[in-house]
């Protein structure tokens, strides 16, 4: 039996600082711009419909403000699409997977392979048009902590999923 139990100094531990992140597909930026546009149009459409239905002129009286607010929100969303894309990145290590995101508030989440419950590949309608997939990684830590890596080529997503599957399987055997 092979057994080793060397003492490990904390300073020798592999660090999350040394990780080189891979960026996601650039097309993801286009997808989020389109999603933002749709969102902004819906935001604009709701008061408009209510106004038309109720026969009020409130909407048209304040059109400048409404358009102004919508433009500001829209501009912010577009900026967010650019910056959000630039700050998203993922990395795999031998024993965990890491995903970082956020522009103003930044965060990185690390999921050890031996805690993964299952993985899923997801494709929204707009993502499908651009040939992108989203990899979802579930743990028992609750829905707010599940990893969702967007903007992957379907091929990459599948390979990642398979790799994780192998890793998770190996952990179960041990």
């Amino acid at each position, binding site marked *: 039996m092979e057994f080793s139990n060397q003492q*490990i100094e*904390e300073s020798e*531990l*592999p*660090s*999350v*600082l040394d990780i080189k992140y891979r960026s996601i597909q650039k097309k993801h930026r286009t997808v989020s711009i389109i999603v933002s546009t749709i969102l902004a149009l819906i935001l604009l459409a709701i008061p408009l419909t209510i106004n038309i239905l109720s026969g009020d002129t409130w909407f048209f009286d304040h059109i400048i403000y409404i358009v102004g607010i919508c433009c500001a929100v829209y501009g912010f969303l577009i900026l967010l699409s650019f910056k959000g894309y630039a700050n998203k990145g993922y990395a795999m290590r031998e*024993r*965990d997977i890491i995903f970082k995101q*956020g522009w*103003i*508030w*930044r*965060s*990185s*989440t*690390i*999921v*050890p*392979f*031996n*805690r993964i*419950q299952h993985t899923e590949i997801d494709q929204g309608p707009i993502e499908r048009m651009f040939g992108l997939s989203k990899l979802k990684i579930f*743990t*028992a*830590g*609750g829905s707010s*902590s599940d*990893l969702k890596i967007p903007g992957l080529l379907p091929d990459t997503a599948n390979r990642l999923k398979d790799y994780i599957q192998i890793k998770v399987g190996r*952990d*179960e055997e*041990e």
Partner: protein
Amino acid sequence: MKKNNFDFTIPQRQSYVAILMIVWKTYRILIRQVFPFLVIFFVGKSAKSGFGDYFLYFVSAIALIGMIYSILAFFRYYFHIEEDKLIVEKGIFGRSKTIIPFERIQTINFEENIAHQLFSVLRLKVDTAGSSQKEFEFDAIAKDQAYALRELILEKKSKLKPIAAKGRSEAATVEEKKTYTSILKLSIIDLIKVGITENHFRSGSLILFAIYWMWDNLREAGIDAEKYTEGIDPLAGGVIILISLAVVFVILSFLFSLFRTVLKYYGLEFWRSDNGFKISSGLFTKKDVSALDHKIQMVSWSDNLLRKIVGYYQLSLKQASSIAINNKSSINIPGCRQDQIDMVTRALYGSRAFDDIEMESVDKRFMYRRMVFLSLIGIPFIALGYFDTKPFFIVLGVVLMIYFIVTSYFRYKKCKFGHNEKMVMIRGGLFGDKAETLPIIKLQNIELSQSPYQRRKKLANVKIYTAAGSVTIPYVGFDRAIRLTDYLLYKTESSNKRWM
């Protein structure tokens, strides 16, 4: 032998009392849905004769349908045992068949409310393993039948070979038929002490919420509650009324929390079994909750200013559950003393689990930031008071600001974290103290986050997710945060111990 009296291989229904329970359950849901309409109907102006009649027909029709539905549901609900599986068939129109292999069954819990006690039946809840499978329950089963069923399932289960024992012992989940040692029993006096030292603020806010809700509903129903308060000059007589209202409110909150405590924790007893804990309490609805050691993810205890005086803690054992993370699946024990907490942690983690944990403070900026941002809340009040020349608001604003500054200081002083090779410990609290402990291997994933300010000052928040909720360590120096993350990950990833 008792269990020979029951043949569980034949599909059978629950006790007839279950009809009552199902009807009650259905009506409760219905009433909750149509309550606002009922209020409108009974007290509102909209109860014009024609409409009222129709409404009455409508309500009766729904009530009748609900009744028929419940009765049908009862007669179409069968359960039986086939070898080592529990099989439940139900459904009024479409039949559904649920098969639960015994080895999936984690715990079997009993519950009884007054009606159950009257007819000597039990509600039986079966908790199964697996994240997607939902748990299910029988509404009412004759007491001896329920005991026999549980005994049978557990006996058969213990004979089953644990499916591919991979680190976790499936056989260990047979928690019944084991010796129970009582850890804690709350007497009436303890109970009253616990009630008196409750967090009255919380009861108060519950009452406020209830009043608000009633007020809102009444107004919706067309009753103008404001006309009763119209005559009062809000400034002159207002202060006296405000003060007396406040006194009444404080007394009410106090009584309410006392009442709630007695209702919830009457006859509380807390046991240790060979591989888990069990708690049973309740005045009208007696409730049994068990937690197995391997399902417990976090142990935390806390007190408040009043509890400090009597030396009581509230202990809570948070366990991973198949349903969404909520309070229902954690065991809460008020009125624990330090030695009982030690007993629990010793049983779970061994005797010197928290030794050589060096507690570290978080960064001072945690306090400064809180002070600045929270005391901003006071400024609108002061401004309002200044421009409106109402000294009351200025005082209120200043008091708020002082409160937030003082509490930020306390929060900072109490917020500490530390770990050793096995455990993580996080301390916190405001006027009281709070400690949260978890074994490192219970970690599910870990999140490092930074606000722009924290990035500038080289700080980060570390959030540790477990299967029973998360804990956050705020404002840790960035290097320390990285070191902590690396260490926790190393421990988690190098261990092949199961988190459950």
